[in-house]
């Protein structure tokens, strides 16, 4: 099966697969349909074939939810765990983020409208990136009243925060992409399962050796690799800032704390019920199975 490369504008047009909220499945999703999707997902496919299967799936908006293998009873440390502490002079970095947010009215204009708000800066080099966002999922969230989620301040695709890109580089990802997940007060992102489809699609489209690797539906990664997403606290936790991973909560974080989590299966949700902004650095990409992150080792990193 050949993989057809999509261009940015084409993909933007096609992201909402169901074409309107009236065709969306409702939460909580029908367990039987979830099971059918999950069973189908387990069939052997290459990564390219798998992404094609996702995009053509009649239950496209349910695929991420169906991909979870999480059963309650698993402990907190298989859901999320501390993976690193980054030591640096955070004050000038935090000031820069604050200034950037003020300049771009990130907080004042915090009423998300699917895609516009996610990319504060459009740059030519973004043409090489194929954003893959379950817009149908975002439509679904809005149907349930979650209209203010978070703002994504780009790091990898902008020249605004080179020091944060260098910090991200300390984690030694391949096909890496980093953003600031900036959640102003009142932001809520309801529970969901990640897919990390953006780095996967990008690797598939630019590296045929990845495209032709078998896809592992449990790790949701190419065989031999692990897709990975870590979150790095850019400011200390404030009361009212909530971050749940299934039936557990990450809280009381300190600037520089980084957590890894079982992205493939663990539902997570965030809410900022404090009165201060909540910036997290979100680093996503590929690691090999012998990478220290894949082995759940903890590192103290200095920048």
């Amino acid at each position: 099966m050949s993989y057809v490369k999509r261009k940015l504008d084409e993909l933007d047009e096609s992201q909402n697969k169901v074409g309107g909220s009236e065709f969306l499945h409702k939460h909580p999703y029908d367990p039987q349909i979830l099971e059918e999707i999950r069973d189908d997902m387990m069939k052997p496919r290459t990564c390219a074939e798998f992404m094609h299967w996702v995009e053509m799936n009649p239950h496209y908006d349910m695929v991420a939810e169906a991909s979870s293998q999480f059963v309650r009873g698993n402990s907190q440390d298989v859901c999320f765990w501390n993976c690193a502490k980054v030591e640096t002079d955070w004050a000038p970095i935090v000031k820069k983020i604050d200034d950037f947010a003020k300049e771009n009215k990130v907080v004042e204009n915090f009423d998300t409208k699917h895609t516009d708000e996610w990319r504060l800066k459009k740059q030519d080099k973004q043409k090489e990136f194929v954003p893959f966002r379950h817009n149908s999922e975002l439509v679904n969230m809005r149907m349930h009243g979650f209209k203010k989620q978070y703002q994504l301040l780009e790091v990898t695709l902008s020249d605004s925060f080179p020091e944060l890109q260098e910090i991200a580089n300390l984690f030694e990802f391949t096909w890496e992409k980093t953003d600031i997940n900036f959640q102003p007060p009142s932001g809520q992102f309801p529970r969901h399962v990640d897919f990390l489809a953006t780095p996967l699609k990008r690797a598939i489209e630019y590296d045929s050796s990845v495209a032709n690797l078998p896809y592992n539906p449990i790790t949701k990664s190419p065989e031999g690799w692990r897709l990975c997403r870590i979150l790095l606290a850019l400011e200390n936790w404030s009361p009212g800032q909530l971050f749940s991973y299934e039936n557990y909560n990450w809280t009381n974080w300190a600037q520089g704390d980084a957590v890894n989590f079982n992205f493939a299966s663990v539902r997570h949700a965030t809410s900022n019920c404090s009165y201060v902004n909540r910036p997290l650095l979100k680093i996503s990409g590929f690691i090999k199975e012998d990478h220290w992150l894949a082995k759940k080792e903890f590192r103290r990193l200095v920048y």
Partner: protein
Amino acid sequence: MITYQQVKNYIINNIESIERDDFYLLEGKLVFKDLSKAKTVCTYFEGRNLTVIFNKTKIWDHWNTEYAAEMYFSDGFEDFKWN
């Protein structure tokens, strides 16, 4: 992580009266169509030192099927030999 796939395979291979389509997964919980089968599974694991939290399932209008009960695990789950 103990996966749903492991749990599902264990149950249908080790509890004689339970078949693949008797239960599904929803938000980390096992949801059963038939109350007596749900009780059978619950009793089986409680007899093997697992703590099982057992509830009636909320029925939603947009579901194609009605479910009688749901359950999830707590103590003993990760120590159990699922394979």
